[in-house]
């Protein structure tokens, strides 16, 4: 029987990945109102760029990371301007369908450009796992958890304590009125796409060294991240973070004590139960009251 504490620690590591990916998804949704189903595929492009800069081109890892993150900003912003802005007045279903199309296009193009053979991405930290009492935690997992909490706190501060955040919340509540109040709504929406892809891209960069990088790497992760966003209430940044860690821990416990084949179905069953009791998700009410 696997150790409960070790499963929880391991779950927090992968939960951080789900949380970061969910955070990117929610950031975009909060300002543009679009559920970006292409978020996993877009995020995967970031470590693929990182690999290209680091491996074939031989740039230092820090430079490769920075340039890959700039590429993430560009990918998110350009995608919004080229595709989503064109149909910004279309019904939500059309916009969602477009993101589904983008998912297939980006994954296909990434496959053509980079191929599907696994690629090695440099780890952020090296070394043996750290001993925490009777348990071990991988250095990569520590970085993931720390980055997730830091980014979560930074975006919470941005949304709740700055004029930019106030503007973004105004757009989320009523974009027409926000426009009349002098807020440049389109710029904010483009920026939210850029930052949303950046955050999800960070998650992809951090997880790529351990799961082997390929254009479909984030497919499975995206499903759990989507579940995390739903669990957290979809409009809530804190909900995305807590939802991500919760999904990570619960899915690890399911795999450890029952079967990995049941991970996805039991995680979604749990979400159905929680949404039955709290249709707004874990943090939905708090998010609404803040708006």
């Amino acid at each position, binding site marked *: *029987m*696997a*150790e409960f504490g*070790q*499963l929880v620690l*391991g*779950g927090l*590591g*992968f939960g951080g990945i789900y949380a970061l990916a969910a955070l990117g998804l929610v950031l975009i949704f909060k300002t543009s109102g679009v559920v970006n189903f292409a978020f996993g595929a877009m995020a995967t492009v970031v470590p693929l760029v990182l690999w290209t800069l680091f491996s074939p081109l031989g740039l230092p890892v820090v430079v490769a990371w920075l340039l890959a993150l700039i590429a993430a900003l560009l990918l998110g912003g350009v995608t919004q301007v080229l595709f989503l802005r064109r149909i910004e007045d279309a019904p939500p279903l059309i916009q969602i369908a477009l993101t589904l199309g983008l998912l297939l296009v980006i*994954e*296909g193009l990434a*496959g*053509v*450009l980079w*191929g*599907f*053979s*696994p*690629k*090695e991405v440099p780890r952020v930290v090296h070394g*043996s*796992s750290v001993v925490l009492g009777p348990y*071990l935690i*991988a250095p*990569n*997992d520590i970085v993931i958890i720390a980055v997730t909490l830091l980014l979560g706190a930074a975006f919470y501060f941005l949304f709740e304590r700055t004029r930019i955040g106030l503007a973004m919340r105004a757009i989320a509540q009523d974009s027409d009125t926000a426009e009349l109040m002098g807020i440049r709504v389109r710029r904010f929406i483009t920026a939210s796409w850029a930052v949303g892809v950046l955050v999800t891209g960070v998650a992809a960069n951090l*997880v790529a*060294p*351990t*799961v*082997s990088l*390929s*254009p*479909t*790497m984030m*497919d*499975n*992760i995206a499903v759990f991240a989507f579940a995390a966003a739903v669990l957290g209430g979809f409009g809530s940044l804190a909900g995305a973070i807590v939802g991500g860690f919760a999904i990570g821990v619960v*899915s*690890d*416990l399911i*795999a*450890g004590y029952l*079967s*990995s*084949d049941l*991970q*996805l179905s039991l995680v979604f069953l749990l979400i159905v139960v929680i949404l039955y009791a709290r249709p707004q998700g874990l943090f939905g009410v708090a998010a609404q009251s803040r708006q």
Partner: protein
Amino acid sequence: MGWRGLRAELGRARFPVSVGAVLLLASCGSSSGGGAASSAPGVTSNSILFGQTAPQSGPAAQYGQSTSGVKAYFAYVNDQGGVQGRKLQLTSLDDQYTPSVALQDTRQLITQDNVFAEVACNGTATSKANLQAQAPANIPVVGVQTGATTFAGTFRPFLYNVWPSYLTEGKLLGSYAKDTLHLKKIGVLYQNDDFGKSLLAGVNQAGVQGAPAISYDPTQVNFGPQAEQFKSAGVDGVIILAIPQPTIAFLNALSAVNFFPTRLMSQVSAIPQSFSAASSEFPGSYIGAFIPPLTELSNPQVKTFADAMQKYEPGKPVSVFAAWGWQEAQVAVAGLRAVQGALTRNSYEQALNQIQNLQTIGGTISYSASAHPGVQQMFLVKARTNDLVRGSG
């Protein structure tokens, strides 16, 4: 990659891969010259068209490298004049390692592309799905890249196995772990489908029950729980019956919990990227094999393969996966060369049934009218820091 390269790649991705497509177009409708007259689909006076389904994308995309192995062997044969004056061509479709896509591809190959026969079709679940189209059409299929009992243990008149049975490989891995390495407590990680279960059955037959035996889903990326389960169980060895990406993720998960049991794995698990992507866990692993280590250039079969890959498929990996395709193409061509009279699917199958002791890169093949087994012999290789060597190396 420049724009020209991108366009070329896009073209390759969107349209079926063809060897000598120009020749095919030029020969359409022609019935004169070359070999004996034929009315078989996919056969003209100067060409024979084979079809293949293999993943060029998705979690098992590396297996798609077998396409370049088939293409290299066909080009090698074509350079020597082809078979009875006919040049060999290949249409390969991407099945994404997804059974429904594979079946759709196979239907297209049979009904629209009119291939003469299929060669080197990849995967257990995908090949199983393909049977729904292959059996009614009674199309010759030379080589399915699986050793599952659904294929290796079942005779079908139109299907010619090349791979050894997974039972054989599972037994080899299990007995090596137990009797040679003297491991006391052996865990098994297996993919929860026919592929993984067939290998697991072989491991069980060797007297290793798996303590524990843990299944996984092929799309899974987080193997932390499995690593922790094996560690908690105190196993001193783990037999990994998995496709490449889950194998790499699992090996990294073992590292994350500082757990380094002896690792044994199926030949389908080992890819060149494993050396760097799981640099602390992959070296030292024992791997089942029927294709010899490709560094053994003193072996004429390996040398011919490596040279042909460089000449006809430059830039493509000279990998075990490519060797799979090369070997299956060797068998397919041996059958063509043995055909007496007009080339039809029926005469081709009769010729394949006569193959005895055919030496291929991956071992000896013999068929009869009532048995189409793959190669019977397997051995173990050991991963070192950068390469594979036979035995305990």
